[in-house]
């Protein structure tokens, strides 16, 4: 019962944070949207910042399980990247409010929220580093490659989400897949890996 009510508050909070922005949202707004008493709200969260953190935690967990489940279906590293990326972009396209909270509003939520956001990007960057294992000996990559790739993608998604272009996000699969894979595989192999996945995952979606 309590769990259920807490989950309902988070659902309402995600919608309202995404729609009016975290900085402009008050506890009163959250309470009204979730249709609960102020007392109950403070029973769950110490304030709106804790509420944002809990919402982000839930969203990031969900997005991560989408990626992990998708990647586990792939046999090679490039396939795993394609599957994970494709499903993640589809998920973002289907859940633009949640994505906005975890990629955009999170950055306005103070030190703890920003740390959580940066930790998420770092986790994603670490996951891409596996691409180095199969690198030809003569290919040297900058140390910061994965971090910059992830930062660039995060910014692009931020941009699309804040410009109200979230439906276009799944269509970024080909370009972003190539951007991620090319440094490890070279242009030709990266294009081939993408082509194996593009039709199933994205045409007409």
């Amino acid at each position: 019962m309590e769990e259920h009510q807490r989950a309902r508050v988070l659902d309402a909070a995600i919608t309202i944070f995404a729609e009016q922005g975290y900085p402009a949202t008050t506890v009163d707004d959250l309470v009204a949207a979730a249709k609960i008493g102020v007392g109950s709200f403070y029973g769950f969260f110490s304030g709106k910042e804790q509420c944002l953190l809990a919402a982000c935690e839930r969203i990031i967990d969900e997005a991560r399980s989408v990626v992990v489940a998708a990647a586990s279906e792939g046999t090679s590293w490039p396939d795993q990247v394609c599957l994970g990326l494709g499903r993640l972009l589809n998920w973002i396209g289907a859940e633009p409010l949640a994505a906005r909270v975890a990629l955009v509003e999170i950055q306005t939520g103070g030190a703890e929220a920003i740390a959580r956001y940066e930790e998420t990007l770092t986790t994603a960057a670490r996951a891409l580093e596996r691409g180095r294992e199969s690198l030809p000996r003569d290919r040297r990559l900058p140390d910061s490659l994965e971090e910059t790739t992830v930062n660039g993608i995060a910014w692009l998604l931020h941009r699309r989400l804040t410009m109200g272009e979230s439906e276009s996000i799944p269509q970024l699969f080909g370009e972003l897949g190539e951007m991620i894979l090319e440094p490890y595989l070279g242009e030709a192999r990266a294009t081939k890996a993408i082509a194996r996945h593009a039709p199933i995952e994205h045409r007409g979606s």
Partner: protein
Amino acid sequence: MQDTQSADGLPRLPPGRHGLSRDFVVTNQRDRLTAGIIATVAERGYHEATVSQICAAAGVSRRTFYSYFSSKEECYLQAFERIGEHLAEAMAAAGSAGNWPGQVRQRLAAMLAIYAANPDLVRFTLVVPLRAGGEIAVHQRTALEHLLQSLTAGRPEDKSLRRPSAAIEHALVGALVGVIVRKVEAGEGERLTDLVPELTEMFLIPYIGRDNAVRAARSNG
């Protein structure tokens, strides 16, 4: 008490007297308020910075502040635009000769030199908007779009040159800004110009390929 004081703590000067034109006083006060809001917002954040703190940093009265700006937002916006113009002019002046990859390197060097001289400018234009959210965050997008325009200006419409999509160009400039911000947040803002080769290479790869990008990044031409 504050009302009779100008920016310099001197009595307000009527125009055209004392060899100090009103334009000069105005410019001076404006400059100080611009410097004041940059330092205050960079340190505290957009929502946290107050007009009183900005005035204290500028050495200007609140009344003077409100004679130039109707709000903190307007002051922020004008400072933001001035920084943008300054960067765009410096980048255009630095990278006008030679081939385009060389121009990119010179423009990045010019931009990083400005940021290194005052790392608060990085916080003000490239960190604070995202942290502030809402309408203010829109300025981050504008800043990055201008940066992209400054870097790609004069790019030859050569068939041999790859043409990355708009999405990739946005990701590219986002990645570039990420590197700059991390350097500043690591307390190494004064050494931003060290990043010239790395950022040149990173930016040029999607246009001219890795080998050419590495060459352009290392050359001194």
